[in-house]
């Protein structure tokens, strides 16, 4: 690992109306690591990921990013256009992500994720919609992946491919932060665990130290 972090969140918090989703929280993501965010439903994992992705502005605190860092974000609920096919969705987001060769990127991801292209994505199975959701997050060659429950709805084969992809990214000096409820995700992929409970960080440390 290098000393220069990709992402540094300092005291980030968020509330929705009167409900506090995330208390002031610190998190640093460095190259080559895989961080697992765990905790019960409503603990603030998705909110923290959205803040790190830049989709949600924090009410307090700051997020610093390394210069020119590309971040891929996969929200928990599929985020693509239901009336567009998988190809059209990938093509649109590839161009929005300024992919140098959008057509090639689309073909590559369609092949890797074995996505049907003959129907609107709203008509795809839950698993295929999740695959498309993940494929879009990979556009733009991100160095950091922020994945929210990425293995939910994936079949074992696709889950194994995802683990391989996360490992390959870490080996190449990239990083991944994934929110998960899946113990296997922790054991297979993660270096570090951050446990959130009711918006607070309850634990942070190596996977081996974390008692599930």
């Amino acid at each position, binding site marked *: 690992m290098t000393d220069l972090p990709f992402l540094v969140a300092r005291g980030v918090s968020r509330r*929705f109306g009167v409900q506090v989703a995330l208390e002031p929280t610190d998190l640093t993501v460095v190259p080559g690591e895989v961080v697992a965010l765990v905790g019960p439903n409503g603990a603030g994992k998705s909110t923290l990921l*959205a803040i790190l*992705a*830049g*989709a*949600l*502005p924090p009410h307090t605190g700051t997020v610093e990013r390394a210069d020119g860092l590309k*971040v891929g*974000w996969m*929200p928990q*609920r*599929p*985020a*693509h*256009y*239901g*009336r*567009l096919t998988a190809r*059209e969705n990938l093509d*649109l*987001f590839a*161009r*929005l*992500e300024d992919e140098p060769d959008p057509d090639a990127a689309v073909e590559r991801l369609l092949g890797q994720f074995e996505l049907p292209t003959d129907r*609107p994505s709203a008509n795809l199975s839950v698993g295929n919609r999740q695959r498309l959701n993940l494929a*879009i997050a990979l556009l733009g060659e991100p160095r950091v992946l922020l994945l929210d429950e990425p293995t939910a709805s994936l079949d074992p084969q696709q889950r194994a491919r995802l683990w391989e992809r996360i490992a390959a990214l870490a080996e190449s000096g990239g990083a991944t932060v994934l929110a998960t409820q899946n113990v296997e995700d922790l054991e297979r992929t993660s270096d570090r665990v951050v446990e959130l409970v009711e918006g607070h960080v309850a634990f942070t440390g190596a996977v081996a130290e974390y008692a599930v």
Partner: protein
Amino acid sequence: MLLLLRKDLLVLKRSPLLLAVLLAYPLVIAALISLVATYVGAKARVALVDQDNLPKTIVIAGHRFHVDRTIDEVSRNVKLVRLTADEAERQLRSGQIVASLTVPRGFVADLKTGVRSPTLLLETTVGGIAPRVRQQVQALVYELNRRLQVAFIEQDIMFVELLLHGGSGKVLGTKFHIIGLDGTERILNQLPRGPKLDKIRDFVGDARKALALTDTAIRSTAHPIDLEEPPLRGRTWALSAQVQAYALGLTITFLALLLAAGALAAERDENVIGRLLRGLITPGGLIGAKLALAAVVSAVLGLAVAIAFGIIIDARGVVGGEPWVRLPLLALGLLLAGAALGALGSVIGSLAREARAASLVAVLVVMPIVFLGLVPREVVPPAGWISDLFPFAHAVRFFNSALYDSSPWGTLWYEALWLIGLTVVGWTIARLNVRRLVS
């Protein structure tokens, strides 16, 4: 922004039913408004209380007036129903009639003798369409007066002719015979000449010349300004410039408002808005894409409606035809109005929690905007002031001027600035709100 616009147009193309409903719905509303307008133009029910037992015919100044026929002819704008005084009063109170016109006792006698002006009594309800009925009854009395005036003028001219040429006449039932100026001159010519007789002869000659001009003079004095109505060859109401402008305004108001509101709220429904706003597009760019969508769809469908109007107008050979050369100006107005309405729709979309709620709110908002814009500002000034805060009225004035004004530039600049201003205000508010959609 262009990528999102292209995506939205693709999504719209794949929703033909939605597009058909968005186009058909305002046209149905426009048709309903036309029906209501027709109803508003229908004849009001007015009581005729005949206390003088009007005869079937009245001879005035030698002219025979058929009372029923005259009432039928002159009451084109109101439906006259014969009622007793008590019944008329009761129905006036209950609102079954909007006015009561009473012919008092002695009316015909006064009319025949001309000793004093006969009087008709008009009572109306308060407010509503009473002012319009009052105007219509005034028009009715004006028309009656005009017909009587013609009869009296002809009788006066007949008397002048008698003075000039001599003959038999009748005044207040008394017959008489006069020799007239012609006869007087003939007699004078038979008398021996002399200075005194020459003065009388000169006077008779001058009087004859003067009276010879009396016919035209009396007629022109009675009608200082004559209104000539050539046979109707112009546009029917349904094809008028105003209706065309309103139909266009109504159509794109529904289209643009609902599209922009729905399209922005749909970004949230699809859970894509967070993905977009994390750096792929700015909030201003996202709202700009919705404005562009509303503007493009408004221009395309608005021009289609205008072309359909034009084809009908040309096919029917309406005088003036469709101003085809003005369509580029209209297209510019459609783009500006579409953007302004799209901005308003984006404000709604940024406040709503989901696309269905946004569409419902947009429909609820569009109705009062349209109806406020239909209220003549001369009649209810506050309605005009409020209407100015929304794009519909400006769009209608722009379209009307762009299509039919001979010198449209002043109006076009003024309304274009309003539409641009409203676009900027709406865009700013929606841009500030749009982050709320990410959660």
